[in-house]
């Protein structure tokens, strides 16, 4: 029975809302006019900063930490680095002049001298699905090297290298298999990625040491030292900390920390600006929504008084403005979403030539739409509830004779 009167109050509110559709449309427009631009603003902030951060995150080069000059590192030290939680990937590097190889293929007439880069499982430069080079025979090529040699994954290569040994020039050949190609956007130069083991073999050969696994002759190698390493931080946020740690232990490194910091500072600045605008906007928005809903309840006093005259209770009367404010909130929000979508589409279209295919300048997640709806509902329900309670609390005779 009581439930029945709630439902009746809801029905009456709905009838009234659509009967007075011109006024309802005005309320919805007023709401959307404030909410829509706010959503565009947030979409821009989120889209711009978001795509910059994404770029930072997706580009492994931003996480790379390179030692400056050549040092003197042993395997144990590299292994302690590998165990650090903020390090995603680290392999030792041999002397740069030793880490080269002449590579030819059946398809290309030219022999390329390629820089040989040590790689291993988990190398961020290897795209997902590409197996890391392992052993003495498997290699991964950079895209430009693969193009010049006209090979792709699965093809064979002929690697060779030369040394002066016992006063004579000596060249050895090494048949290789291409197991993968690193895309150009990750690595643009000509290069060959090989296992650490193979880079060590190249250095040993050039130093006149023996490499039994490949049948290369020479003296016995002594304790090995590396002159550098390839290291990637787990995330862009770990770069600054790692850099500081290296500097403290006396290793000068080169990082993208400055770039990362720039973007993060921009994020903070844009966020601060956005929140300042949003706060002002939200306050204005709540006030205007509250004021219009409050005024609406005031305008409805006579009709609410009639409902009270026929015996609706306070709690049931409140449903009337409440339901109408929910209609306004939901319809206004929906219109704001339409406005936002149109604006975002326009902005993204306008800036599309400057952007990658996947990038969007103006972007919102479904979660953001949800937050906007929740905020709108909260503000409008609060206003309507307060106004409705006030209307239901005064004597019913007040309002009855208005007009």
């Amino acid at each position: 029975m009581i439930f029945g009167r709630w439902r009746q109050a809801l029905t009456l509110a709905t009838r009234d809302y659509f009967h007075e559709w011109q006024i309802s449309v005005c309320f919805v427009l007023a709401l959307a006019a404030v909410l829509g631009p706010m959503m565009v603003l947030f979409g821009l902030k989120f889209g711009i900063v978001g795509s910059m951060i994404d770029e930072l995150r997706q580009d492994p080069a931003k996480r790379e930490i390179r030692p400056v000059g050549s040092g003197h590192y042993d395997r144990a030290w590299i292994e302690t680095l590998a165990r650090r939680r903020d390090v995603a990937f680290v392999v030792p590097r041999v002397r740069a002049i030793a880490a080269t190889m002449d590579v030819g293929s059946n398809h290309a007439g030219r022999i390329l001298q390629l820089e040989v880069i040590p790689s291993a499982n988990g190398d961020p430069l290897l795209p997902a699905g590409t197996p890391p080079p392992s052993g003495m025979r498997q290699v991964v090529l950079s895209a430009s090297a693969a193009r010049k040699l006209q090979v792709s994954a699965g093809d064979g290569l002929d690697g060779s290298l030369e040394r002066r040994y016992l006063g004579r020039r000596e060249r050895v050949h090494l048949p290789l298999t291409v197991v993968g190609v690193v895309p150009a956007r990750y690595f643009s130069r000509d290069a060959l990625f090989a296992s650490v083991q193979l880079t060590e073999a190249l250095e040993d050969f050039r130093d006149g040491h023996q490499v039994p696994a490949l049948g290369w002759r020479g003296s016995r190698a002594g304790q090995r030292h590396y002159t550098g390493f390839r290291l990637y931080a787990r995330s862009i946020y770990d770069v600054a900390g790692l850099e500081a740690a290296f500097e403290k232990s006396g290793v000068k490194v080169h990082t993208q920390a400055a770039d990362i910091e720039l973007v993060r500072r921009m994020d903070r600045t844009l966020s601060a600006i956005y929140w300042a605008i949003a706060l002002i906007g939200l306050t204005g928005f709540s006030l205007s929504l509250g004021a219009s809903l409050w005024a609406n309840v005031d305008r409805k006093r006579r009709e609410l008084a009639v409902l009270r005259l026929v015996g609706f209770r306070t709690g049931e009367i409140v449903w009337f403005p409440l339901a109408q404010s929910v209609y306004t909130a939901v319809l206004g929000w929906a219109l704001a979403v339409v406005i936002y979508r149109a604006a975002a589409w326009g902005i993204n279209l306008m800036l599309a030539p400057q952007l990658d295919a996947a990038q969007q300048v103006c972007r919102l997640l479904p979660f953001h739409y949800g937050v906007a709806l929740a905020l709108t509902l909260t503000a409008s329900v609060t206003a309507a509830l307060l106004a409705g309670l006030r209307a239901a609390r005064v004597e019913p005779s007040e309002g009855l004779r208005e007009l």
Partner: protein
Amino acid sequence: MVLHDQSLPIYELKEVVKSREAEGYGFRLRVPALRIFPGEKIALIGESGCGKSTLLDMLAFVLQPTSCDTFRFQVEKRPQDIAKAWKRHRLNRLADLRRRHLGYVMQTGGLLPYLTVRENMSLSRRVLGMKDDGTVDSLARELGLQRHLNKLPGELSTGERQRVAIGRALAHHPAIVIADEPTASVDPFAAEKIMSLFMEMVEARNITVIVASHAWRHIKRLGLRRLSHHTRRSGDGQMAETVVNG
């Protein structure tokens, strides 16, 4: 409806006072003693501004008395202490009494503009959860509104709207109908017709009725009991007091 002992008054008021103040001008309505019995037809006649609406609103539990010794209302077995309900701010109790026992015809329709005539007339029934049993249709026939049942109030003449309001006040079979100048906004000829129709209808349904009007002429013919009242003004015209007895 289980009607109680006919000899007990529906309304019993003692020393009920309503004071109103507006911009230095004061108005006071005092009811030293008033009893209204079941089935009575009461008329409250007086010039504009003498306090008719004020009294009717108090009798309809929509206006709180400034002070009162006794304000009892009894339709069912248990007497209801209206004075106490107001003092304790039991607005929902009063709403329940209004819903079940009262019909109210206002000076100006008081119809909901977004409901059709039929829905407006059914409103008082719907809030009581009463099923549609043809009452509204027969009321509409009596009031000459059959043609208008599916119109909105905005499409009716003032007199038609007034008749819809009468229909709404009667549709849920209330024990009491209060009418505040139900014909004030229509021409005298129509007023007389509507008033006679209204009185016929309440008579036929044995409803207690309280009507306010400033025209005694035709009310007298309808056989209503007139409440005695007189209005005094202070010398400077700043204060007016109406005393109603009956």
